């Protein structure tokens, strides 16, 4: 029998990680992510795992990367300021094909901003944070249940693709308490291990098998450009192109499996209006479309549960049906740029920015805004 728990999002996230087989956590204190670390510190020793609080966020993700190469499923959790500090190591994890999960519980920024208040300002940092040609995988929960489910999914994708996966949450989701159903069984396949004697750990397959340190493969792991064996090539353009193209192909050829969304409201036919949103904002949107439907509008809400790679086709399909698309977000307008790009003129795209204080627009406010947009 699946069991139900009344958990805040952060606890659900930690429990999801444990259920997914996470056995190593390193982190640095930061509001509003602290409960994830605190819960992991309590739970990991009970399941034979290891928790350590490091001296900063670079050290935290560094230790996670080391533990991952030593064979453990590993994770860290932070918020904007720490997420910024982690960017170089996120790029490193991507380039060295190191599975790991990074939870970013977003708060108001830039800088220290409003530490205890929700925001969604890290959409683009999650995509473009590391320097160079990074390809991001980013999931976006909008309830404690999804903090659990998407943390599990983050491990699954990360292990299967050998790439870092970010869970982009926010203060509202992190601290709200809701029923979380824990399934009876969660199975994430073991990492594919190389056969004895193999010397290629970074190609030629899209996702090459990953050796564990200490298993006799003599693997050289490096953040410099490297060939399939891991040997550094710091000048050869061909070696770099081959590597980066494979890494991008790895992420983008899996985009369809990563894409994850929920369409509510009118499922078919023309729409007067649609919303595209994610995270805590979607909760207000879902109520707003009920209000709008009761006013006689044909409306739908597309809620993205995976933001990167961006689900272009899903958004384009919605745009074929909708006259106008509203993108409300707790930032000065980030997701809306991507929606506009994917919509490519098929519909009007209107952003609605709300920043500061962690206040979501109320469903009534969203409905009012929508009515103005459609001229009712």
């Amino acid at each position: 029998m699946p069991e139900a728990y009344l958990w805040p999002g952060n606890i659900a996230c930690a429990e999801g990680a444990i259920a997914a087989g996470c056995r190593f956590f390193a982190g640095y204190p930061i509001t509003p992510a602290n409960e994830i670390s605190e819960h992991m510190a309590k739970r990991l020793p009970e399941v034979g795992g290891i928790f350590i609080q490091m001296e900063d966020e670079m050290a935290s993700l560094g230790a996670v990367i080391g533990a991952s190469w030593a064979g453990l499923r590993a994770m860290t959790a932070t918020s904007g300021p720490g997420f910024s500090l982690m960017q170089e190591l996120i790029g490193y994890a991507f380039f060295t094909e190191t599975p790991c999960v990074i939870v970013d519980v977003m708060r108001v920024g830039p800088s220290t901003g409003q530490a205890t208040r929700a925001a969604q300002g890290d959409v683009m940092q999650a995509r473009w944070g590391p320097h160079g040609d990074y390809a991001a995988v980013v999931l976006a929960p909008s309830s404690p249940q999804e903090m659990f489910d998407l943390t599990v999914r983050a491990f699954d994708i990360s292990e299967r693709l050998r790439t870092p996966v970010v869970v982009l949450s926010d203060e509202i989701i992190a601290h709200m308490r809701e029923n979380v159903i824990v399934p009876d069984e969660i199975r994430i396949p073991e990492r594919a291990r190389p056969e004895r004697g193999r010397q290629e750990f970074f190609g030629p397959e899209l996702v090459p098998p990953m050796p564990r340190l200490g298993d006799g493969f003599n693997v050289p792991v490096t953040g410099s450009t490297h060939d399939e064996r891991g040997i550094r090539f710091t000048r050869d353009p061909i070696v770099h192109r081959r590597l980066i193209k494979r890494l991008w192909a790895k992420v983008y050829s899996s985009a369809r499996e990563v894409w994850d969304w929920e369409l509510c409201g009118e499922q078919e036919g023309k729409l007067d209006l649609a919303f595209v949103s994610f995270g805590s904002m979607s909760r207000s949107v879902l109520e707003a479309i009920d209000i709008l439907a009761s006013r006689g509008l044909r409306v739908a809400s597309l809620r993205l549960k995976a933001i990167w790679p961006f689900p272009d086709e899903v958004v384009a399909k919605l745009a074929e049906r909708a006259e106008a698309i509203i993108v409300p977000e707790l930032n000065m307008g980030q997701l809306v740029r991507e929606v506009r790009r994917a919509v490519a003129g098929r519909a009007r795209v209107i952003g609605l920015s709300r920043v500061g204080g962690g206040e979501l627009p109320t469903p009534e406010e969203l409905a009012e805004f929508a009515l103005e947009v459609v001229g009712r």
Partner: protein
Amino acid sequence: MSGGGFSIRRYLRPGLKLPFCPGCGCYTIINCFLKAVWELGHEDLSEFAFCSGIGCAAWIPSPYFNADSIHTPHGRAIPVATGVKLARPELKVVVFGGDGDIAGIGCGHLIHAARRNTDITVIMVNNMVYGMTGGQVAPTTPLGAKTTTTPLGCFERPLDVANVVAAAGANYSARWTTAHRRQLTDAFRRALTGRGLRFVEVVSPCPTNFGRRMGMDAKALLRWFVEASVPIEEARNMGAEELRGRIVVGTFADRDEPGLLDRLREAYGRARPP
């Protein structure tokens, strides 16, 4: 020990050529380190995992040692090594890095690893400069030394790294120069055994990007190391003025306190079993 005598080649990845400049101290360090490995009875490096950051010194293990190695971003080798060690305690985890890597950008990690007494070996190659980037001032550059970013002479005091590491709680901390091959090899041997953090600072010649601007070639640098070296026992009776410009060598700490893993296991023993 079987299979012939000591040769560094048995530990090096075949088909690669070491990349260091002629006269670079990294050659001596590789020799002495692998000699220590040999003397400890390791026929190969299968029991080791190496971590290093960015810089000439950080290239020592990666990819040249025929072993598992993680070549991390600049300054982050110690945290990565910490993760490896905690996840696979049976491995001997060794960090190589330059003075900039370990005592500049990564200094916080070094001190916390010493405080935790993390069960790893850290070897810091102190060439008194940022070698790989062309010879900029480092946290270890002597007062007055000319570098590319101190054309008028270095106006900051150097960090006494081996001393700081000892004070922060590492089980073992030593400093030698590449002119002290036997002592260096012995220090490496000690640093590869036992628990807790074991740190060796090696004062090493960078003729290309340090010596050149100081008017010294590799030989002159080594001569200077010999002349400037003072055993720590003597240094203890010398004043700060007398010690200026000298290189204090020897063992700064050698103790056997519980390491991070001991403490962690002790604490985790109190956890409820699953």
